[in-house]
């Protein structure tokens, strides 16, 4: 017994990079409140918008009101003379020609000029100024005179490649060569099918709409630039700013300690950040630039709209024989991603598949990664298609999905480190009371129809290097964790502090987290792709283990015992053979002399030949009032395999929040462009762009989990949870609406307006 303990101690202390996941953690896995909760509930958290620096100026941006236009003339004279104005930048300045680099995940695209005289989207930046107060900045903005030559605009992906349409870039309207994937023999697969279904699905452009708009505060000290900006990716922003301003990377410091929500829209250098930096350099005063809500709707990213044509076949026994998935997506005016089809190739075990993603430019704000990018749109189509097939062969939709759960990744053939999709479906269905709920229907005379729906999901996550974190232990038993990770609300700080507490046996209250500052923290991957826990938990654990190793070595020297006979419990050194005689850290003279022990950690490489993915199934119950088209989601149940749940509170909150975002995607959210006239967005505000409120979400939400005890994915045993929660919700709701009404709504969102129109059309058809 003791022997085992000792050897496990040795494992963890000598080989920090190859730790096994915890077997009986005492801190990790507990529902602990956030370590940064105090500042968030007390109002003392300083988000970048809250910074008030001495002598600070306030900037505002003049934006093109047209979706497509040439700036013929810009007159800033009156604005320049307006009270309080200190500086103006525009295309007339050399800085106007600066080119903003694309983030690393967008390998190429047409150059993005800071102030391009050819404006390709409504809201494109034309000029900017800084003044003593925000009111003065906006007063001056109203005095700027611009003469535009309006160009004809392109708003729909379906039109982009037709002849005679306006060309956004001299390379044309195609973003990149269409991405095609194929396996098996599609024609043969369709031939083998007992049933075939064909359908076109559309999703609407959805806006991230974080409650905090984008904002930047810039300050120069000599040639040293500091920028406070809410971002998931401090190093991405630092690199891009340095490249644009031709500064050494070390001369740019990006700080992002509080982020008021992101969901993917705050992960790359935005023009406003560069503008703040330029105005601050011109004036040699700090500059704050906060976007308005309207600006954030127009030019701070979105989930691109997709048109998805699917054809699928299945046998009577429920096995999928073939799937063809063709997607057309509109990225907006500059390069990004609007893919969807490729995701479907990995979802189910289907031998014959062809997917194609075509992405085009349109005259609208550029897309940015948005929680489950591509996967959410793909699921809207595929998960409804699966239900249509199940319906056609008369099979239960849960059973149909169970029939087609893949054993390995269908596209690459690689096995997953763990996959509990089957269990998610089974456990979820049972807890939901699926079988009973499928049968129970409202009486035919009642205008309120009830229905239930299911959808499943998968999200591939990648952890691994490069990332460096440092854990520092002090003789009083307190510790500092230093890491690059931002915390956009997910609880990363809390979870990582828990990892330190777990590893070093010291209380959470004694751990301080220093983070998200390129000036003081080491390089770390950005918080995106649901990988924060996968990247940082192993790295933090390795750093803490490094501290522990050094500490035990010191203790071994002082206590004249081999290190492997010592352990660290509750912040004390405990001899394994005499657990009753612990020694306080402050009693270790060597430690006191050294003042601190610093441990460094990196995430180990990803397991070779294995894929890491999270899985889940969600169940929705809806009520549809066929007299009014009103749709209420009355129940949501999620059952997810995200590996180890590091903290049930933060995990569940990710799922609840993801599902509610899915409600918005399914029922209410939609960018509306003035289609046949001006091409401008008519609902760039929070009244007309409808985000779910507390009254739009069901009281009854449940989040179940399945822990596959994944020992391969990483040393935390955890997979990602940030994005997957939003992926299956919308199609589960759409499937429930079909179950309730018999109407298949292929176009998101399923507004009462659309529902009523479809109900009326059906009545007429009868």
């Amino acid at each position, binding site marked *: 017994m003791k022997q085992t303990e000792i050897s496990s101690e040795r494992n963890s202390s000598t080989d920090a990079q190859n730790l096994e996941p915890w077997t009986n953690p005492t801190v990790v896995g507990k529902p602990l*409140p*956030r370590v*940064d*909760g*105090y*500042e*968030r*509930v*007390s*109002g*003392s*958290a*300083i*988000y970048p*918008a*809250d910074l*008030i620096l001495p002598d600070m100026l306030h900037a505002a941006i003049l934006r093109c009101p047209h979706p497509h236009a040439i700036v013929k003339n810009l007159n800033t004279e009156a604005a320049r003379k307006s009270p309080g104005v200190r500086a103006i930048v525009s295309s007339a300045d050399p800085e106007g020609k600066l080119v903003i680099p694309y983030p690393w995940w967008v390998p190429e695209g047409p150059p993005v000029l800071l102030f391009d005289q050819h404006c390709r989207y409504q809201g494109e930046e034309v000029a900017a100024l800084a003044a003593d*107060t*925000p*009111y003065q900045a906006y007063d001056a903005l109203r005095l700027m005179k611009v003469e535009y030559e309006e160009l004809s605009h392109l708003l729909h992906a379906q039109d982009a490649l037709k002849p005679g349409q306006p060309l956004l870039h001299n390379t044309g309207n195609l973003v990149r060569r269409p991405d095609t994937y194929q396996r098996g023999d599609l024609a043969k697969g369709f031939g083998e099918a007992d049933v075939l279904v064909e359908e076109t699905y559309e999703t609407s452009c959805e806006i*991230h*709409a*974080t*409650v*905090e*708009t984008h904002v930047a505060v810039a300050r120069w000290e000599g040639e040293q630039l500091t920028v406070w900006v809410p971002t998931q990716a401090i190093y991405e922003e630092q690199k891009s700013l340095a490249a644009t301003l031709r500064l050494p990377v070390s001369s740019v410091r990006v700080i992002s300690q*509080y*982020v*008021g*929500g*992101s*969901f993917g829209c705050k992960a790359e250098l935005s023009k406003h950040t560069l503008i703040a930096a330029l105005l601050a350099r011109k004036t040699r005063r700090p500059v704050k630039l*906060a976007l*308005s*809500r309207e600006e954030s709707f127009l030019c701070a990213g979105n989930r691109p709209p997709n048109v998805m044509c699917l054809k699928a076949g299945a046998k009577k026994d429920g096995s999928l024989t073939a799937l063809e998935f063709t997607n057309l997506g509109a990225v907006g005016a500059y390069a990004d991603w609007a893919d969807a089809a490729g995701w479907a190739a990995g979802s189910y075990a289907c031998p014959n598949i062809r997917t194609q993603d075509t992405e085009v430019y349109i005259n609208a704000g550029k897309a940015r990664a948005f929680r489950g990018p591509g996967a959410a749109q793909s699921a809207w189509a595929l998960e409804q298609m699966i239900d249509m097939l199940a319906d056609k062969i008369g099979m239960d939709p849960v059973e149909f999905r169970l029939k087609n759960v893949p054993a390995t990744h269908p596209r690459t053939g690689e096995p997953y480190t763990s996959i509990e999709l089957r269990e998610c479906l089974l456990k979820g269905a049972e807890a939901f009371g699926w079988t009973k709920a499928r049968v129970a229907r409202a009486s035919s005379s009642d205008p309120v129809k009830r229905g239930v729906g299911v959808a499943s999901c998968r999200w591939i996550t990648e952890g691994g290097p490069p990332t460096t974190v440092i854990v520092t232990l002090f003789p009083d038993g307190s510790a500092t964790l230093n890491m690059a990770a931002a915390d*956009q*609300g*997910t*609880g990363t700080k809390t979870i990582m502090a828990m990892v330190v507490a777990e590893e070093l046996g010291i209380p959470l209250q004694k751990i301080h987290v220093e983070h998200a500052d390129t000036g003081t923290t080491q390089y770390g991957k950005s918080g995106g792709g649901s990988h924060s826990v996968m990247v940082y938990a192993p790295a933090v654990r390795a750093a803490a283990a490094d501290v522990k190793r050094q500490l035990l070595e010191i203790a071994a020297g002082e206590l004249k015992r081999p290190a492997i006979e010592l352990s660290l419990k509750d912040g004390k050194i405990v001899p394994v053979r005499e657990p009753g005689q612990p020694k306080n850290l402050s009693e270790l003279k060597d430690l006191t002399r050294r003042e601190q022990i610093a441990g460094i950690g990196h995430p180990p490489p990803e397991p070779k030949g294995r894929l890491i993915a999270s899985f889940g199934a969600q169940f929705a119950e809806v009520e549809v009032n066929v007299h009014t088209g009103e749709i209420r989601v009355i129940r949501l149940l999620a059952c997810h395999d995200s590996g180890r749940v590091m903290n049930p*509170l*933060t995990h*569940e*909150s990710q799922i*609840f*929040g*993801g*599902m*509610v*975002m899915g409600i918005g995607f399914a029922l209410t959210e939609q960018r509306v462009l003035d289609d046949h006239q001006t091409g401008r967005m008519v609902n760039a*505000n*929070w*009244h007309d762009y409808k*985000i779910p*409120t*507390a*009254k739009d*979400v069901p*009281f009854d*939400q449940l989040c179940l989990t399945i822990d596959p005890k994944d020992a391969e994915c990483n040393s935390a045993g955890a997979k990602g949870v940030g994005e997957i929660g939003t992926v299956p919700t919308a199609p589960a709701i759409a499937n429930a609406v079909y179950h309730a009404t018999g109407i298949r709504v292929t176009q998101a969102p399923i507004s009462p307006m659309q529902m009523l129109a479809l109900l009326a059309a059906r009545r007429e058809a009868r």
Partner: protein
Amino acid sequence: MTRNVAITVNGTERRASVEPRLLLVHFLRENAGLTGTHIGCETSLCGACTVLMDGRAVKSCTVLAVQADGRQVTTVEGLASGDQLHPIQEGFWEEHGLQCGFCTPGMIMCSHDLLGHNSNPSDGEIREALNGNICRCTGYQNIVAAVKNAARKMSKPIAARAGAR
């Protein structure tokens, strides 16, 4: 063009000479330096800027500072006494009624208004009371739990609460 105002913020009278167009939220953030009241839309929609004016929740982006002249304004910074958080603040923390925290001060102030006239609200009443506050992160579930947590605590005598802590 400026007007003199005297606004009592969190119990302290603040006098200033302001433009009539200055919004209360800007007065609080820029003049009084109380940045816990956040701006999410400046158009009365999101509720991030909710404060109490004479005890009732209002959206401070839709109140002029001159309108608040002579009135009592409470912001999130005014709830705690010393380092003892208000039970509503504790509720939001303990129940994880927040993620990014940006909407949280507004949610807390609106909950304060609710619990002021309904000490034991149902789920539905809480959702009704908070429907003018947008949260993009949490899905509202734990926010409702936070308000219930606070209601439980506030119905107990203060001494018992301190002991429980």
